[in-house]
């Protein structure tokens, strides 16, 4: 979904929100549902911003994270 349009992002956010409601909908009132939808949209937007950053197959995550300091 590289370079998604705003419309596509909204559709993804709506689908993910629906998945939340399948699991937790019985715990949420109308305001809660709106809040979940807003928060999912924010996460989708942040994830989309990260997709704009180019990575290669060689870029691994740090599975045990350490703060990086170049050895001199």
């Amino acid at each position, binding site marked *: 979904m590289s370079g998604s349009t705003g419309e596509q992002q909204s559709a993804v956010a709506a689908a993910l929100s629906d998945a939340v409601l399948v699991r937790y909908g019985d715990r949420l009132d109308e305001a809660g549902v709106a809040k979940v939808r807003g*928060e999912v949209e924010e996460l989708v937007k*942040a994830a989309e911003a990260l997709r704009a950053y180019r990575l290669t197959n060689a870029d*691994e995550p740090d599975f045990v994270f350490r703060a*990086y300091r*170049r050895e001199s």
Partner: protein
Amino acid sequence: MAQATGEALAFATVRELGRRLRSGETTPTALAEFFIDRLETVGRRFNAVVTITRERAMRDARLAEAELAAGYDRGPLHGIPYGAKDLLATVGAPTTWGVAPLREQTFSADATVVTRLRDAGAILVAKLGMVELAGGMGYNQPNASLTGPGITPWNDQAWSGGSSSGSGSAVGSGSVPFAIGSETWGSILTPSSYCGLSGLRPTYGRVSRHGAMALSWTLDKLGPMCHSADDCGLVLDAIAGPDPADPTTIPSTYRYAPERDRGDGFRLGVLRDGLDGAQPEVRANFEASLQVLGQIASLEDVVLPDLPYNEATRIIMNAEAAAAYEELVESGIVADLTAPEDRTGGYARTVLPAVDYLRALRIRRHIGVALDDLFARYDGIVCPTTAVVASPLDMNFNDYAGRVRRLPIGGAGNVAGLPAISVPNGVGERGLPTALQVVGRAGAENQILAVARAYQARTDWHRRQPAL
């Protein structure tokens, strides 16, 4: 405690209290009694206190008194009272995580930090208030804790900051000489700024997280909140170091050695990102700070590499919090959280795709390398700690701060695990403190502490006391 007056003791630094203890002017039991009384009469006014650990404190204080009298000196923290954010497990007292339904939660072992402070002779006198679940449910206003909203001692209508709210207001009101806070994204530096303290966020892995509530395993850090930068160094020396119980701890030992550090000749980067939206007093006080820093350092404007710091931090924090809080969310306990927005804050992140989390982690590596390239050129990079002073108690803090709620250096420093210290640097609107932060490269705590000490040697903002 005959010769020492109350106010002099309340706002004394760890070093000053140590001198009084060793001169016989006061004793560990007298200090413990004094600060317990202060917590009851002053600290509680600011919603800083969850539990006063009187029995444990007096037992440890009597031991410290006997040891010091016998000539056995454990070092600068021996006999000094302190408070711990209530996410650190402690035997014999509840550990609530700031959550009303968990007010009876107990653990069978002390957190590593608590054990290390005990080994250094420090006296735990209180578990301190905090934002419920360290703010991990997305609170947006101060009333988000079982102890009520944290209040800054500088203005009883303003917030103390979060999520280490009680640590901030307890130290800021002279109710404990120092406290331990935790930071995932701003939770040590912000309350330090809002309460007029010196607060240190160590390098990720410098201090064991064992026994501390997890919000985000790869972002959480524990650190000291004190009356001076020097005190931060003394406390860090006691709590830092490798711990087999926390595999993310840095293998090398840490030693605070101010006598070996420079007092001038520093090279500092000056970061102005986001300052156009800062309050005028924050900008003015920062410029005044630069005048002082110019006496001890060469100053050079810098800009952060253009990378998605806040987005990466947000995705990592949310993905890890979704897992860390999964049982709490599933149990339904969250429905009884104090802040209404926290009751539904744990759901959206449960559908965050794993690939997005992993992408954020992959980008984090690039961020670490790019920032180290920049930070390696300086002893530290300076900027305001927060763009605004503490928000009013009854206001959404995002509305108060607007778009400068999260300065880019906050996300950058936390996602890369870099150390930073916040020190007070002036007064802003409504009589509230403003602050300066010095951020260093990974492992550079002693350099940023040296810069902060040199700044505090030329200013007296850290010695100002609120009118209580």
